């Protein structure tokens, strides 16, 4: 297991290096520069600014400088969005709200989704099942920004239960964005668990469990649930992505000072180092999630234990 994780960590570093390289050159291909928008600058002033951030160096030198800094954990300094602040500091200070609504959304969505899917499978072809399927379809087909606006209108404006936007009332401010983010994981989990539970409940070992005298709830929770979880773990990765991309939009709508909101802004002002830093940060996050998912597989399903083939 340790050997496996070690190997995976090496792959992770390689993946990150590749992502950083690609993003770096893609950014350079883009027209414009961080200082291009500043029309008021005279050519001389521009040259001074570019020199300060190393933008006047030849491209390979810039690349190696950047990668060298990256290895040391230095993501550079913000060029125009936060005027000279360390990118690492910017990201860390913005992480809190994003992590909070992301985590709450993910947990809320998966837990409710699993419950909904289980109930639907156990009450197959009844109104409970149909309602759950309807919720799942709605959750998948309606984009999170539509949800976000609807939640703002009804729960914020009409009924005044939660703040409409901004990050001022602690937990209360996080409720609506979390719900908006939770819809996709909820719908996905419900669909997967329902299909898989129905399949598992029809399998031979469930009949054997019944033949042993197990009760309905013992069969559902002791025997079926764990086996039905396996395919859900597979979509946890894509779900994490949806939380990430979802938060880009949702943070914008709710005016939450999170990474997503800052990322969007930095793209608009072409703040090179912030864009790079955030991309690398997101990549690390995703790669770690994928590793966790792979480890989780083995925990849930003994047939996929990751000790190098033989178990």
């Amino acid at each position, binding site marked *: 297991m340790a050997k496996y994780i070690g190997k995976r960590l090496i792959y992770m570093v390689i993946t990150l290096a590749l992502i950083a390289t690609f993003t770096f050159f893609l950014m350079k291909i883009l027209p414009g520069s961080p200082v291009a928008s500043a029309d008021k600058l005279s050519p001389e002033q521009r040259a001074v600014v570019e020199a300060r951030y190393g933008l006047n160096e030849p491209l390979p030198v810039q690349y190696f400088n950047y990668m060298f800094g990256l290895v040391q954990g230095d993501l550079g300094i913000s060029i125009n969005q936060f005027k000279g602040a360390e990118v690492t500091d910017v990201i860390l200070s913005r992480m809190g709200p994003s992590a909070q609504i992301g985590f709450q959304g993910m947990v809320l969505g998966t837990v409710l989704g699993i419950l909904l899917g289980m109930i639907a499978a156990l009450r197959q072809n009844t109104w409970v099942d149909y309602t759950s399927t309807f919720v799942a379809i709605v959750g998948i087909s309606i984009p999170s920004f539509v949800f976000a606006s609807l939640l703002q209108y009804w729960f914020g404006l009409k009924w005044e239960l939660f703040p409409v936007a901004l990050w001022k009332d602690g937990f209360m401010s996080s409720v609506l964005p979390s719900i908006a983010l939770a819809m996709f994981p909820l719908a996905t989990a419900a669909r997967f668990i329902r299909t898989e539970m129905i399949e598992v409940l029809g399998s031979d*070992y469930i009949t054997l*469990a*019944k*033949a*042993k005298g197990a009760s309905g709830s013992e069969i559902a929770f002791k025997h079926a649930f764990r*086996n039905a979880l396996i395919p859900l773990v597979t979509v946890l990765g894509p779900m994490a992505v949806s939380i990430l991309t979802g938060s880009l939009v949702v943070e914008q709508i709710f005016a939450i000072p999170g990474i997503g909101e800052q990322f969007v802004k930095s793209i608009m002002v072409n703040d090179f180092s912030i864009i790079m830093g955030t991309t690398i940060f997101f990549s690390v996050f995703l790669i770690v999630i994928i590793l966790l998912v792979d480890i989780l597989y083995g925990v849930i399903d*003994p047939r996929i234990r990751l000790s190098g083939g033989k178990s």
Partner: protein
Amino acid sequence: MEKILQVKDLELSFNTQGGEVKAIRGVNFDLYKGETLAIVGESGSGKSVTTKSIMRLLPESSAEFKSGEILFGGRDLTKLSDKEMQKIRGKEISMIFQDPMTSLNPTMPIGRQLTEPLLKHQKISTSEAKKVAIDLLRLVGMPKPELRMKQYPHQFSGGQRQRIVIAISLACNPKILIADEPTTALDVTIQAQILELMKDLQKKIDTSIIFITHDLGVVANVADRVAVMYGGKIVEIGTVDEIFYNPQHPYTWGLLSSMPSLDTEDAKLYAIPGTPPDLLDPPKGDAFALRSEYALKIDMEQNPPFFKISDTHSAATWLLHPDAPQVEPPLTVIERMKKFPGSRYYEGGAV
């Protein structure tokens, strides 16, 4: 002999979108203490459904008892609540399934699967249950049972898994063990081992076995009595010798003729022509008449009653009616009957 289970006029249907499938159409049999009753028949004859209905393992949403009763320990199993059935399943009646590769939970160590019925039905502690489970594994011939308790099903071979399933089914010393084609999915040498094991264990714990199979070779090996099922009914029932050496129903003749044997002279193996009856709309008379070369006119119109051949042997065919014409069974069957004292072809000697 003590009757442990009585199935009386059992009728059961499946409600499907295409209509009502009459899967069991009036089944009667008794199971005696300590015996092995084999139920044979082709796919769709109702043998599995009959036993699953005893355990009440059929989906309640579609399967419906139409009439009849299943008497066990003075109670009618068709009328018990789910809770009461749960106390019987695994404790009084237990079951072994066809495919050992899929009948164990893949994400649960086999130790826990073994102790589950013990903890459920007996008032014992977890550590005691573990001890019993290890003993059970040893009983079914599993080497190093202590080490294997923590392992998962995928770490065992097919034969070993079936041994584990047998151990689970015997955990609470059931009065009845239902084995639904327990050897069909195994290769021949393992089949023989599993059959030996089952016979051995039956002697040790004195349980009655209902053994479902379509393999007549297996039947001859394990059964005391045999019930032949066709089209949702039992068509002939008797001791294993009576069924094998003095069969009376044309369907039994067909089954025995289609069994390969070492001294078969014909190069080609006999096959019963036609297909099983459609139980959505079962035939009016004898369900086998359409496929039988011995069918009489009355077979098409009226269902044959059971005719008694001996105290233990009866068959549902009009051929046994006093007014029926004398017919010659197939040659292979006559060869068999020559060895059976009491049959009209008996030539002396013993079976």
